[in-house]
């Protein structure tokens, strides 16, 4: 079966009876069983749940036809979740040996919302343990390989969510984004990825990494699909106190974009730099003004991020004390231990003011930078990663080098703003490269508009790698 790569095509095929939902699930599970051993994408395949949901889909479709799709935006859409999303009765490991056998008694709000909207859950996806990482190599269950070239990393920490969609093992997936963990893997796997505004999508039931930075990420092949997911996922759930309901932003008719001069630093790969320039030209050709802006505190992003994030990580991982969740604290991997130590240190009496408090002050400055920028422009064009995908093992010996992967992505988390990553082109090594568009808080729908416009201009066609 030639699997459709968009929500609309999938639903149309179901309507036109080209295949049944059960056959659709057959095909996806077939793809998983063919390639998962090699690429290590799914940690748990929930075929029973998938088939029972697919049968329900087929039944409802026979009964209500078109109407059921109108009322259920994700009707018949296969979905898979990063393994830090709690799924009731379905194992949730966070990619860590600590939770190797943990079966949660409740489901995350985002999981419930996707399934209520008609999605068919296929399973749980590999990721860097506790979402700590930028390559997928920190998973306690082994690294995930990039479907575009298995010698390369798929990015991280949402390695499985990106690889599953890129390899045709699922149509959409949920990731999380604390410092780039959805956008960088989406970018490395030729996908559209969204890091929403902090407070747009409830985090309830997502294992916390860094509470002031964590967001629920979405991955799919097209901006249209990301928009559908976003509208299903957003809004208050009565559990996440920071979430607000908001109305869809009015879509602008005239856009102005900015590129920060501070982005062009040592370490930015030539091919990525050229791609950014090409993106600028595409927008200009479409009649959109692109100007140079300044985000003077860009150089502090990574240092500030690597103080606030470990501090919150050390706090959030405290509950895995070996008493309640099976495996004890020796089961924590190197990276988690490193972050717990760093975080405990920066919060300690006598160091708190010098590190954590100071970092929070710089964070305010970073927010001011963006507030100022968004008075001038509607969105900012930025690289996602300084380089195209790198080889497995290339950065693992030097954690600091790995941390620099986050140089362009952490800013959206520190400022709480939305960012949409878009596939753009392929490097000379035939690896995906893309860019991100950052907007002001709750401006997601305008970012979608800009993303669709770009993909229309370059005549983007979704494709899977294998």
């Amino acid at each position, binding site marked *: 079966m030639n699997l459709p790569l968009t929500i609309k095509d999938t639903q149309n095929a179901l309507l036109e009876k080209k295949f049944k939902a059960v056959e659709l699930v057959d095909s996806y599970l077939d793809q998983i069983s063919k390639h998962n051993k090699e690429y290590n994408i799914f940690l748990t395949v929930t075929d029973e749940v998938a088939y029972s949901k697919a049968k329900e889909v087929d039944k409802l479709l026979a009964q209500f036809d078109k109407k059921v799709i109108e009322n259920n935006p994700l009707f018949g859409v296969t979905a898979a979740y990063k393994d830090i999303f*709690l799924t009731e009765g379905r194992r949730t490991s966070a990619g860590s040996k600590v939770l190797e056998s943990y079966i949660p008694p409740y489901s995350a709000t985002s999981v419930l919302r996707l399934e209520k909207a008609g999605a068919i859950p296929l399973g749980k996806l590999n990721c860097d343990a506790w979402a700590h990482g930028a390559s997928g190599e920190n998973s306690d269950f082994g690294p995930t390989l990039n479907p575009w070239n298995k010698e390369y990393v798929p990015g991280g920490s949402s390695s499985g969510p990106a690889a599953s969609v890129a390899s045709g093992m699922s149509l959409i997936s949920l990731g999380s984004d604390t410092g780039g963990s959805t956008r960088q893997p989406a970018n490395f796997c030729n996908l559209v990825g969204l890091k929403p505004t902090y407070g747009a999508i409830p985090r309830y*039931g997502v294992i*916390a990494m860094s*509470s*002031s930075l964590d967001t629920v990420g979405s991955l799919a092949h097209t901006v249209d699909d990301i928009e559908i997911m976003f509208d299903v996922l957003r809004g208050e759930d009565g559990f996440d106190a*920071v979430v607000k309901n908001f109305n869809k932003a009015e879509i602008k008719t005239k856009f102005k974009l900015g590129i920060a001069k501070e982005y062009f630093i040592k370490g930015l790969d030539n091919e990525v730099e050229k791609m950014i320039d090409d993106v600028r030209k595409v927008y200009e050709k479409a009649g959109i003004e692109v100007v140079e802006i300044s985000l003077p505190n860009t150089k502090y992003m990574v240092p500030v991020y690597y103080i606030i994030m470990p501090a919150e990580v050390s*706090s959030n991982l*405290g509950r895995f004390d070996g008493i309640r969740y099976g495996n004890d604290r020796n089961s924590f991997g190197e990276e988690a231990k490193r972050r717990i130590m760093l975080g*405990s240190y920066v919060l300690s009496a006598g160091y708190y003011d010098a590190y954590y408090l100071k970092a929070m002050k710089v964070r305010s400055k970073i927010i001011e930078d963006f507030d100022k920028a968004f008075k001038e422009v509607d969105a900012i064009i930025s690289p996602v990663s300084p380089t195209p995908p790198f080889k497995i093992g290339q950065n693992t010996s030097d954690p600091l080098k790995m941390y620099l992967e986050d140089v362009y992505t952490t800013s959206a988390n520190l400022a709480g703003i939305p960012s949409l990553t878009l596939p753009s082109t392929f490097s000379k090594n035939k690896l995906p490269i893309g860019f991100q568009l950052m907007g002001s808080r709750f401006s997601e729908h305008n970012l979608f508009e800009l993303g669709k416009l770009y993909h229309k201009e370059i005549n983007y066609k979704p494709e899977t790698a294998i």
Partner: protein
Amino acid sequence: MKNYKPVIGLEVHIETNTKSKMFCSCPQNHFGKKPNTTTCPICLGLPGALPLANSEAIFKTVKLGLALGAKISKFSRFYRKHYFYPDLPKAFQTSQKDEVLCIGGQLLGKEINHIHLEEDAGKLVHETIDGKKFSLVDFNRSGCALIELVTEPVFRNIAEVLVFVKELQLIARYLDISGADMEKGTMRLEGNISVTTDSKIPDYKVELKNINSFRFLEKALTSEIERQIKALEAGEKLIQETRGYDEVKQTTFPQRSKEESQDYRYFPEADLPPIQLGDEMISKLKSEIPELPVEKRIRFKTKYGLSNEYINVLVSDIKRSNYFEDAAKLSSEYRTIASLMINKKMDKQYPEAGGLIKKILELTKISYSDDASVDEAVLVVISKNPDVILSYKNGKGQVIGFLIGQVQKILHGKGDPKFISLKLIEKIKK
């Protein structure tokens, strides 16, 4: 022996009588419940769970602050306080620090440092099952809303401490923020104790924990002060430490010294937005504060002329003081009413205040005044109180009690309240 004086500061924990816990919708009341039956992912600290602040608990804390003259913070927030203990499922307690809800205030002239809001921990139960020793955790109390009041080190003797905590307990009940019951653990005390020979605050303090009744509070403080004086007399240097009170041995014992004290690694709780209170909300909460014990005592003195002893007994129980006032509306034999209630517990015998009054009349063997003198007294009262009559006509029915009282005054309490009431209404209508 030198003249040693204790220096005592208090930390009082009050569990609110809110419907739900501090950050989830589980019931707050855990007393006598089967272990681990009032829990959910949030108060169990399960992965992925998030807190949502209980505004009722916030308002109750603010009311306590207002009643004690504290400054209410328009902007305050929760912090995470980290430590490991099996009854603390998140490995941090969500509490407040620096930016707390209520700052300062005083009670009975004793300065309060601050009042803040936090969540309670679960409870460890140590049991022997089939000959093996187990430590079990009951999470019913985990996440319950808890108010903490911290005083300055302002107490110089034990009697002051006892009066203070009893008055605080009473205020909590008057404000309807908590049963503040030591035996049920809805009020818990910790003392910071040191002794000094001059007016300076010593450079050490001993934190005394596990006090769960007023009686033990007195005993624990006495034994700890004695211990400290003995040690100083023997030339020992006292250290900063935490001690518990052993109810059987009636002595305190060391639990933790300063060297082992924890670094709680406090930082602001990002999962909860800051608490912002506007002037309007603060005024609204202020308007909901009822007459407080201190005000009621003065009123009972001036209005009813009762003895301090009677006043204290009545005011210390809201229901009984209300009963007294109901009875006082029907008869001006205030002291007799109070005496029968307190010495003969006759309020238990007669659930309605009217019954008690009837009994009083029987006991004093005074027959009701004749109809003519009632008529006369009613007319006098009506002519003397035109404002009250007007407000009665405007629908304030409850003033009839006052008018009955006035008539009874003229009749020296010998009128039949029901008959007076009938006559009053009849005459007013005319």
